[in-house]
């Protein structure tokens, strides 16, 4: 089944590999944004079923973007999965406490990223 997902990440390499992976492996409909501000606009337009959101971005970072998504009734209920290269458990707990659906760690395996996301969201 095809799903709609938005990837928000300032790093072109990560964004392009993730999009490629989700489109090729899972056949999902993927939209992308390269900043938190652009992500808020794209989320309201595209209305994805889930958002993959990078933590460390210049300007509006992942946690701030998440809080803004929650303020907009159109995007408030969309499940958000944070993507981070921070591996310390204290960082992971801090991110999980924000109320996101899951925290995924970079680097991800492009072959299995969609399965990881689908498992978290019950799309399997």
């Amino acid at each position, binding site marked *: 089944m095809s799903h709609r997902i938005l990837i928000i990440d300032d790093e*072109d390499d990560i964004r*392009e590999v993730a999009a490629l992976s989700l489109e090729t*492996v899972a056949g999902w409909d993927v939209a992308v944004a390269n900043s938190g501000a652009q992500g808020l606009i794209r989320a309201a337009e595209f209305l994805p079923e889930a958002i993959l959101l990078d933590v460390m971005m210049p300007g509006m970072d992942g946690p701030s973007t998440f809080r803004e998504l929650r303020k907009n009734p159109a995007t408030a209920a969309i499940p958000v999965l944070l993507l981070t290269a921070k*591996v310390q458990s204290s960082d992971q707990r801090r991110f999980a406490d924000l109320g996101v659906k899951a925290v995924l760690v970079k*680097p991800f*395996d492009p072959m299995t990223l969609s399965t990881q996301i689908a498992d978290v969201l019950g799309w399997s």
Partner: protein
Amino acid sequence: MEPSAQPELQHAIDLLWAKFRPEMEERIAVLEMAAADFAADRLSQSQHEAANTAAHKLAGVLGTFGLTRGTVLARELEIMYSRENGPDPAVAAQLASIAAELRKLVQNRG
């Protein structure tokens, strides 16, 4: 995943690697320069921050392109550069040798 999708995805990932390899090499150059300047006791605050960011970004992406060892090495550098006052002088040689190993890994990926 459909069995036919795997080679297709791998080929597409290889094309993305070719596209982004110069960016990876730029990040490694930042780490090489920071290691040299740290050894010469002239690492600036902005260089220190740039090295920390470069290591963090490499740690997050190299494994995605199959360079798991690259992620491990970049994480080591990130830890060394994440100290507020700069790396421990005792690791000066390691900063350079790890950056050199990263350079080799990226070159060998093709």
